[in-house]
Each structure stands twice: as C-alpha cells, then as structure tokens.
C-alpha cells in the first residue's frame, strides 16, 4: 500500500517536471518561420530547396524610394565585408508585398542591381500573406489619393535571420547601418 502511494507521488512529481520543462522551452523559444514558397523571376521558388547556413529576409516594395533601397545598400555593404569563406554561406532574400503593381521580373531585376546574389521574390496575394503570417510580419496597402502613386504601403521594417530550416534565429529591427547588420550576421554564422 505504502509503495503504491509512493509510486503515485513520484509519478506526479515527474509529470509536473516534464510539464514545467515543456512550458519553459515553449515560452523561451517560440518557433517562428519555416520553409515557404513564392515566385522568383517567373518560377516557383521554395526556401527548403536551396537554403544557406544563414538567410536574411526583408519585406518591402520596389517603389519604396527611401528605406528599402537604403536597407538593401547596407546589406550589400555588410555582405561585402564578410570573409570570403563566409560569403557563400549567407544569402539575402527580399520579398515584395506589392503584388498589384510589381511584376516578378521587376522585383528580381531590382534587387540584383544591388548584389547579383540577392533573391527578389513576389507571388500571389495568397502566397505573400502565408509568408507574412509564417514569419509574424505585417504589411498594409492603403489608398492615398493625395499622392501621385495613389497608394502607400506600411510594412515591417526588420531583417529576420533564418537558419537552414527557415526558422527565425534572430532579428534586427530598423537596420540603419551596415555595421550593425555585419555584427548580427557574424553573431549568427
């Protein structure tokens, strides 16, 4: 009888420990990200087909004249400063959230002017929205009758750093210099 009570008692303690560990792990590392599918220059592009050791992801739009090209320039500069052996281990992916006005050729050709290794993606609204949800990002296209363009896009301004599985291992909010990007890459490579 005593042995039975003891067994039950210890099983309870053990279960509580397991439960605590699971909750703790889940809380400290919520898993964001994974593989995704979009369009690159008119072809399907699937992340898990050719992941790098470290993958940088940024969303924006090609007609964004200020923050997006500044960010792309900084990323190009940061990658240029990496040691030769590390250069091929890192890749930058830009995803356009402007499905209505930007063709797949526009996006791919646009980013390649900054760096020939940059991948420029867009896709159907459905594909883009899935990616946005997967990575916990946001964007919003709003009519703007005051502006010549007629619309404006609000979007997340942060670089996500993904591992080979597409899981977010780190992020850099509002990157404003190539040095901070380079530091972040080195920390995670």
């Amino acid at each position, binding site marked *: 009888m005593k042995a039975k009570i003891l067994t039950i008692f210890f099983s309870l303690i053990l279960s509580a420990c397991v439960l605590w560990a699971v909750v703790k792990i889940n809380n400290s590392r919520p898993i964001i990200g994974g593989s995704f599918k979009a369009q690159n220059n008119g072809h399907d592009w699937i992340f898990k087909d050719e992941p790098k050791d470290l993958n940088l992801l940024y969303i924006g739009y*090609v*007609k*964004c*004249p*200020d*923050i997006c*090209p*500044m960010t792309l*320039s900084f990323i190009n500069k940061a990658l240029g400063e990496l040691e030769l052996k590390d250069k091929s281990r890192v890749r930058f992916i830009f995803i356009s959230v402007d499905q209505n006005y*930007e063709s797949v*050729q*526009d*996006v791919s*050709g*646009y980013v390649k*002017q*900054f760096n020939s290794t940059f991948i420029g993606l867009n896709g159907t609204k459905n594909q883009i929205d899935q990616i946005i949800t997967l990575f916990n990002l*946001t964007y919003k296209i709003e009519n*703007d009758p*005051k*502006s*010549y*363009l007629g619309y*404006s*896009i*609000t*979007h*997340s*301004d*942060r670089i996500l750093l993904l591992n080979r599985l597409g899981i977010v291992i780190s992020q850099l*909010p*509002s990157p*404003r210099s190539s040095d901070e990007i380079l530091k972040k890459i080195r920390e995670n490579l």
Partner: protein
Amino acid sequence: MKYLFAVLSFFILVASLANSSFGEQKIVLKQVSVDPLEISEARIFIPLKGSSATAAYAKLKNNSDQDITLTLVNVESFSASEIHESLVRDGKMSMKKVDKIIIAAHKSFEFSPGGHHIMLFDATQNILANQKLKVQFKVNGKAQSFDFNALSRF
C-alpha cells in the same frame, strides 16, 4: 644664430599677415554670397531598373532672421514630385506626404535617408550620373530653383 632668428621672425610676421588678410577676405566674400536659403549636398538618386520611384536629399540652412516656409513645385525630368516623410512606428515603416516644410530662423533642416525625402515618380528621360537637375521650390511663396546632382546608388 642672431641672423637666423631675424630671418625666422620675418617669415613668421609675413605668414601671419598673409593669413589675417586672407581671413578678412573670406569673411567679406561670405557676406556678399549669403542667400536666405542655402542648400548643400543636393542629390537625386538615379531611378533603379524595375522601379518608377526614387528620392532626392539635401541639407538646407535658413540664414535669415525669419522662418522659411518651403513647398515643392517640380523637379526637372520627373512626372511628379512630392515631399514625404518616412516614419517608423512599432517596427513598421510608412511614408506620408508632407505639404510644406518650415525652417525656423537660422536653423537647419535635412532631407535624409530614413527621414524627410523628396519622392520622385516616372522619369521622363534617361538620367545620367552627375547630370544637374533643377528642383523648383517656393520659398516663402517665391519661386526659386536649385541644382541637384544625379547620383548612382552604386
């Protein structure tokens, strides 16, 4: 030794005289050329392939004793131009159109990446590096043009 000292002091005297007269000249020149609105580092990024929009930046200084109200009229070789401000809030970036800029007396203002910029749409011609493009503002209601230098992003 005495001779050497004399020569040296002579040179120092001549040098300091030359310096001071040069300095005076500079001050006089500056007084003549001061505009109420001074613009420097005025640049336009040549549009990139695939994008119909680009931006212009500059540093502005109000040298006058009055506030300056600045509005944008047009930019040579572009179909449209607007003053915009990039804003980052809660990790999200957005842009909004700004109708006018007010620069207080003797203060500076900067169109700079990530802040205020002149957004340009649909170039009407191919723009080459180092080409000068006229940007027309209204400065306190009066039209005034400034040359902006076309630059490549790379």
